[in-house]
């Protein structure tokens, strides 16, 4: 069970100056450090923030000025490295792509933002989860160009239309927002999950690739595409706007009709 006791963590030293136009919001974070804690708890922090701030800014505020033990991953801070996928107000988002202004309560009412780790992967500490199962599923679909025969001396030719065919799925940043939004994945951790299928799609529909059959065989497996229940959570969760469910459907169709 999750402990629900609210713990208000005190500050450490003087806080940085509050910028003009800042509003105070409450950031409620699900904490868990197996090194010291028996079970998870919720901590709340009062934070002065600008509407243009990202949720990542709020997390940094906590870590840098209120509680240095708060732990999360982040790197690029603008939505391309895929480090900071988390559940923000109950949906999977990148903390660096959600702005406070889009989370404010209506009519100046007090705003509370809840943040917790993505679901379905073991929590290592606070918002930081074990990514190994996720990357293992990725690796299992042979996510690389497979070709046979001699390589050409120059580039392989590919028409703009053939290039466009798989453009959507090249955008994946492996953040795991889709996979960990999937109810099937929550209950059946052995399911490859949307991200692995997206990355298989990226090669199955690449006109230069000759490994489609191998990958389709893998995805025809009991933990493959047929587990998908078309809930569209993944599509909604993708911070890159990839039509994840559509990609999964295209892989299913390729299996049904034995044709890419």
């Amino acid at each position, binding site marked *: 069970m999750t402990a629900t006791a609210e713990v208000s963590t005190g500050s*450490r*030293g003087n806080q*940085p100056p509050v910028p003009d136009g800042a509003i105070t919001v409450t950031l409620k974070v699900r904490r868990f*450090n*197996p*090194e*010291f804690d028996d079970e998870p708890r919720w901590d709340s922090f009062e934070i002065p923030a600008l509407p*243009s701030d990202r949720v990542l800014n709020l997390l940094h505020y906590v*870590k*840098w*000025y209120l*509680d*240095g*033990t708060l*732990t*999360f*991953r*982040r*790197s*690029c*801070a*603008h*939505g*391309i*490295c*895929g*480090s900071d996928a988390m559940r923000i107000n109950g949906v999977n988002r990148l903390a660096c*792509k959600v*702005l406070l202004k889009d989370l404010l309560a209506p009519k100046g009412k007090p705003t509370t933002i809840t943040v917790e780790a993505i679901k379905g992967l073991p929590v*290592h*500490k606070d918002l*930081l989860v074990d*990514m190994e199962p996720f*990357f293992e599923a*990725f*690796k299992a679909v*042979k*996510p*690389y*160009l497979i070709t046979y025969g001699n*390589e050409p001396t*120059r*580039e*392989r*030719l*590919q*028409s*703009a239309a053939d*290039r466009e065919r*798989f*453009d959507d799925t*090249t*955008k*994946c*940043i*492996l953040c795991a927002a889709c996979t960990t939004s999937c109810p099937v994945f929550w209950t059946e951790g052995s399911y490859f999950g949307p991200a692995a299928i997206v990355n298989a799609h990226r*090669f199955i529909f*690449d006109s*230069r*690739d000759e490994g489609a059959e191998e990958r389709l065989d893998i995805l025809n497996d009991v933990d493959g595409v047929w587990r998908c229940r078309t809930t569209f959570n993944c599509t909604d969760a993708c911070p890159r706007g990839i039509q994840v469910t559509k990609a999964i459907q295209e892989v299913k169709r390729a299996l049904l009709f034995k044709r890419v």
Partner: protein
Amino acid sequence: MQFHKYDVVIIGAGGAGMRAAIESGQRARTAVLTKLYPTRSHTGAAQGGMCAALANVEEDNWEWHTFDTIKGGDYLVDQDAAEIMAKEAIDAVLDLEKMGLPFNRTPEGKIDQRRFGGHTRNHGEAAVRRACYAADRTGHMILQTLYQNCVKHGIEFFNEFYVLDLCMTETADGPVCTGAVAYELATGEIHVFQAKSVVFATGGFGKVFKTTSNAHTLTGDGMGIVFRKGLPLEDMEFYQFHPTGLAGLGILLTEGARGEGAILRNGSGERFMERYAPTIKDLAPRDIVARSMALEVLEGRGAGPNKDYVLLDCTHLGAEVLETKLPDITEFARTYLAVDPVKEPVPVYPTAHYAMGGIPTNVHGEVLRDNDNIVPGLYAAGECACVSVHGANRLGTNSLLDINVFGRRAGIAAAEYALAHDHVELPENPAAQVEAQVALVLSEHGEERVADIRTELQATMDANASVYRTEDTLKTALHDVQALKERYQRITVQDKGKRFNTDLLEAVELGFLLELAEVLVVGALARKESRGGHAREDYPNRDDTNFMRHSMYYKQGDGLAADIRLDYKPVTFTRYQPMERKY
């Protein structure tokens, strides 16, 4: 403590590290250590393209590319290295395509190419289409493609292993590199990796600045480790400010936008680059464009309520070009500034972007111990290295080229060295220094907060050591950095645990930032001229008589407060004599 033994250890899993790993891993037993996960590396943030004279869409050749690189670097480029890079660029792009990289295509199905700053036809006649690209996600595609190929080749990664020290063993022939020491983030355990060769590919240190396109994790760890070992750093005063960062945020908007025809305008709507670079205008090299933008603002011609930025006008490109060729930057402007580039110009200002300097290497990636000698077994490639192919100012796209050409070269050289040599014994107690460092950070010895020192460091560097510099501003920066280093001795971290202690990680990173900021400022003070990315208001001209030479910095003694010794290294010339730099 845990012990591992490999032929080759690669530190860093961005473009350079993974390109090296693909070569090394197929030849020798290789481990890649990264403080992140490979796909989080900042290579993925690169947008616009990778230049190579493929001549797929118009006449081009690698000699023009060589010349542009040397002129772009304000003649501080080592010309032999630039020639190698421009020549090997062609195969570097073709190799990536064969590995699966989804480049944009021409109507004939070949790799498409676009214009980019400073890349010209026939030695400056006009902008040339040389940059191979995948929309505005070229870096993302390179990072993913290299990672995919590492998976294919079964490369062994140690993810979230933070390397904190390099092992050097004294031999009769001088110091030899024998391994590296890492702190495992998941457990707090120390790991010693014995290796025959070690490749540093740890990226840049943009986080010394406040406004930067760099990731939070770009803290110059590799450069800092090497410097602390008494090995030199080169040309650290040359730091690139990318002209088009989102105003106030620093998030990168690719130069490829201007390559596709976007125009910079000042507050009154004037296309001001016509005044500064009449021939190639908005596609002048980054140092020139960044200075021009800063001047427009300083002279009161900025845009916005505080006249503190200029505008990147993409509105005439049309929604289709923006959505298909520049989709990510279009989204960045919409998400972070609530500005739609289809309908209105985007507020932009220079953002700290790239270190031209770094760990000095030769063209095989071998790290130099001084002007004449290498450290056997030690290699560096990518932004952390200084070959020097970028001189005083890097041309756009040449960083993606650098990581592929010199990452590959370093990987091959490191593996071949490992195959030809035996392991050399590690120094005594190889983990001792890292154990002491970690214990010191975790101990209670003061009240200073890491975030405060970092914030003040970034503020003084932005104010005093960015696009324009003077003796006075640099002295202020030096004074501030030294005071912050003193305060750093009294930091405390709250997290004392062993499990994913990112509080500790940030404290260690700050130590590297402080040290590298000081080297940058000391170098900028000593270089009393303006060249490429280093612009001194008090010495506005290039001074070839006194400063046509690389700077070399050595740390004197131990501890954070140790002195820096400055030395020089000659520039390598082959066929291009320095000329005035006009565009």
